[in-house]
């Protein structure tokens, strides 16, 4: 590739104002995006990747400023342009696919009006022309019944459909550069793959360049020609994707690669010991779910079957994973198992007790045996409690113990989950995501339960933190003999932690068995789809064909 790069960032530094202090979050970043190229900006939260992308399109938050450096679009420095002047190129020459499709659309305007808006802003006047172009665009991004979609409101569309609408807005004027800021982070894997395929396809059709901002090295490896790895506001490494993945030079890129579950095809986990007895007995299982069915009443008087005849057994001391996309019934299943929902039919035995038969006081005592860790540690911890109070609280609910004794259990548990005792007095908002999830795990463990239900417990965390928490869970299981029910949409993570897997699809269990069997010899087509959608596979395979260090 030669000639002037389409986008050229030189020595860019960005600061945010906090009261009277300016703190710099991007330090001297330089990168180029050539025509028709996909460059992925990879890093954890706080690495400055989003800030860099925002400065390209002139959308830094109000307290941000560009300290120095140049952003050249086709040779013209646009970094000092006022917002009004940028309006002329935003949408027309550079466009943005925003991060969260749920909040990026105006809920009170129709899809058609919002797609048409960008055309109006850039000088289209003929209403009929706008309307027909909108339908054309919606059809182009793969929405069925585009005329109907144009009249619908955002809440009538699924997350994947909304993201398609945002892509339609982004490509409406066939811009030269698309900045895609985590375009698929909230979506299911199969939807994610289809959206990324769509962006690829449109890129080839229009010759657009893409600056892809992502925390997922797997996605970046699959889609980008070049990777730029950022950490702490600085570029750690950049290079052609295959070469970088085959032979990363910087320590940080190596760690990121090692921690990314989808890229790591080797399983480091020690297998759990096989049962000693030849034949299974009921006592070998901590949780037995038989023919679980759950109906929800609908507004029109009918019922919706969210869970349809699911059965599985959870052997003591092992991990069973429930895998499925949103709407697969996995959340309803675990809520029944921990006793928050009463199933319509079927039986759940936890440690030999049928929980449907329990009444209030018994149910409360039963909760000691099975604890739930939530997906989002930002919502599952009371913002008004400190770490000590959060972990201590379950102890107060059961047998009264002395204050000193409670303090000792909380402190020893804090050591157990790898947190410093100096954090005891901190409120949740002063902790990082990984620390919060460790606190949530400690709270679940303080009652010494037999079963831990982990509801997407690592999905909200950065890969490196995710790897650390998975390691912690593995250690805890070995040391305490815990049984895990691990719920996830991410097959790559499941492979690292689970012994057996149930794959759920639309409330039905489509496949169940040992983890190796599911990965190597899946019997259902849905499982195969899921496996194929794991990002990073093609990237890794491309890298494997290269010998380390060789140039393209």
């Amino acid at each position, binding site marked *: 590739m030669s000639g002037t790069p389409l986008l050229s960032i030189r020595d860019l530094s960005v600061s*945010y104002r*906090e*009261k009277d*202090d300016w*703190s710099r*979050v991007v330090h001297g970043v330089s990168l180029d995006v050539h025509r028709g190229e996909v460059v992925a900006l990879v890093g954890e*939260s*706080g*690495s*400055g*990747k*989003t*800030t860099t992308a925002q400065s390209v399109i002139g959308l830094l*938050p109000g*307290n*941000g400023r560009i300290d120095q450096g140049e952003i050249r679009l086709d040779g013209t420095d646009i970094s000092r342009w006022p917002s009004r002047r940028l309006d002329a190129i935003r949408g027309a020459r550079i466009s943005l696919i925003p*991060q969260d499709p749920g909040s990026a659309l105006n809920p009170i305007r129709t899809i058609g009006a919002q797609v048409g808006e960008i055309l109006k802003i850039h000088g289209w006047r003929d209403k009929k022309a706008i309307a027909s172009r909108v339908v054309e665009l919606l059809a182009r991004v793969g929405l069925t019944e585009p005329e109907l979609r144009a009249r619908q409101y955002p809440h009538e569309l699924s997350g994947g459909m909304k993201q398609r609408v945002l892509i339609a807005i982004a490509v409406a004027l066939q811009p030269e550069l698309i900045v895609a*800021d*985590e375009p698929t982070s909230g979506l299911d894997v199969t939807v994610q793959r289809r959206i990324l395929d769509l962006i690829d396809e449109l890129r080839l059709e229009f010759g657009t360049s893409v600056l892809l*901002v992502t*925390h997922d090295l797997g996605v970046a490896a699959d889609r980008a020609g070049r990777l730029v790895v950022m950490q702490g506001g600085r570029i750690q490494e950049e290079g052609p994707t295959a070469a970088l993945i085959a032979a990363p030079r910087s320590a940080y890129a190596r760690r990121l690669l090692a921690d990314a579950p989808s890229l790591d095809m080797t399983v480091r986990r020690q297998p759990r010991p096989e049962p000693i007895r030849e034949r299974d007995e009921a006592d070998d299982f901590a949780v037995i779910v038989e023919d679980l069915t759950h109906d929800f009443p609908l507004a029109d008087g009918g019922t919706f079957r969210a869970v349809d005849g699911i059965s599985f057994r959870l052997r003591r001391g092992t991990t069973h994973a429930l895998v499925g996309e949103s709407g697969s019934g996995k959340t309803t299943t675990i809520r029944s198992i*921990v006793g*928050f929902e009463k199933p319509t039919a079927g039986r759940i035995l936890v440690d030999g007790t049928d929980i449907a038969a329990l009444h209030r006081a018994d149910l*409360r*005592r039963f*909760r*000691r045996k099975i*604890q*739930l860790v*939530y997906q*989002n540690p930002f*919502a*599952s*911890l*009371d*913002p*008004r*409690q400190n770490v000590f109070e959060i972990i201590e*609280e*379950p102890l*107060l*609910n*059961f047998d009264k113990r002395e204050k000193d004794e409670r303090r000792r259990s909380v402190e020893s548990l804090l050591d157990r989950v790898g947190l410093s005792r100096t954090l005891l007095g901190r409120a949740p*908002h*002063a902790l990082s995501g990984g620390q919060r999830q460790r606190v*949530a795990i400690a*709270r*679940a463990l303080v*009652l010494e339960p037999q079963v831990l239900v982990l509801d997407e417990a690592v999905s909200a965390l950065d890969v490196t933190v995710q790897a650390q928490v998975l390691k912690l869970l593995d250690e805890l299981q070995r040391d305490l003999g815990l049984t895990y029910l691990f719920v996830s949409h991410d097959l790559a993570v499941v492979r690292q932690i689970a012994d057996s897997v149930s794959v759920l699809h639309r409330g039905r269990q489509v496949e169940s068995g040992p983890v190796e069997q599911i990965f190597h010899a899946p019997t259902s087509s849905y499982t195969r789809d899921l496996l194929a959608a794991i990002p990073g596979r093609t990237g890794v395979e491309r890298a494997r064909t290269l010998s380390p260090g060789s140039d393209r």
Partner: protein
Amino acid sequence: MTTPPAVTNAFSGRGSGHLDRLRGASPGLVLAWLVIALVVLWAAAPALFTEYSATVGVPAEKLRPPSPDHLLGTDALGRDLFARIVHGSVHSLSGALVAVAIGLVAGTMLGLVAGSIGGLVDDTLMRIVDVLLAVPALLLSLSIIILTGFGTINAAVAVGAASVAGFARLVRADVIRVRRSEYVEAAFGSGGTYAAVLWRHVLPNSLTSAFAFAALQFGSAILSISTLGFLGYGAPPPTPEWGLLIAEGRNYISSAWWLTAAPGLVVVAVVLSANRISRAVGRSTP
């Protein structure tokens, strides 16, 4: 993804924060604080500000105009008006405090019960609240006083009762929001009893807006209590209650206008100051 480093710096500047805030505060806010501080001092130690009695007058010195001896003159019974205003502050302030406390406590209880139990209980309580909100507050207070009898405390209770509905509505909305949050479910999941979870999680997290509303209510409670006093439903004479002072001065408005104007201006100043402060407080606590 990238969040501006908001949290780290918010804590580093705590030490000099108070001074900075004072320097940055608007003059109006400073004045408001001074007014409230002065009135609180009047209530706490009236003897520091005036040597005259609030209730015993000197008949020979009746209806004197303002002079160095009597800053705001004297009333028809020869009582020093400034002394009466100073001594009266304790009635207005304590009345407002009682009123706000009643509204806050009773409203929070109702809101908590309605929001956490839900269903028929919620519907019933909220329809009652609808009715209470539909009746003008002053009318409601008057009806309560007619039922309970006149007096400073009764007036305060009446004013407080009229604000219960507002508090209940506000707290219920917050309780419903908090009740659905994951940390409340997690607390039930770790074996918490219903009462324990309400007390530890739902109540503390639902009170933020109720406290902000209570601060706003303080000013209007002073106004309502003075109104009741003015109409003769509050403290009986010779209590130097501000509303009563205005009412008593009304008879001499053509010859001694300061008898109504002075206590009236004091009420206006205190209410405006209380509102100004509660607005500033409400803005700084998100």
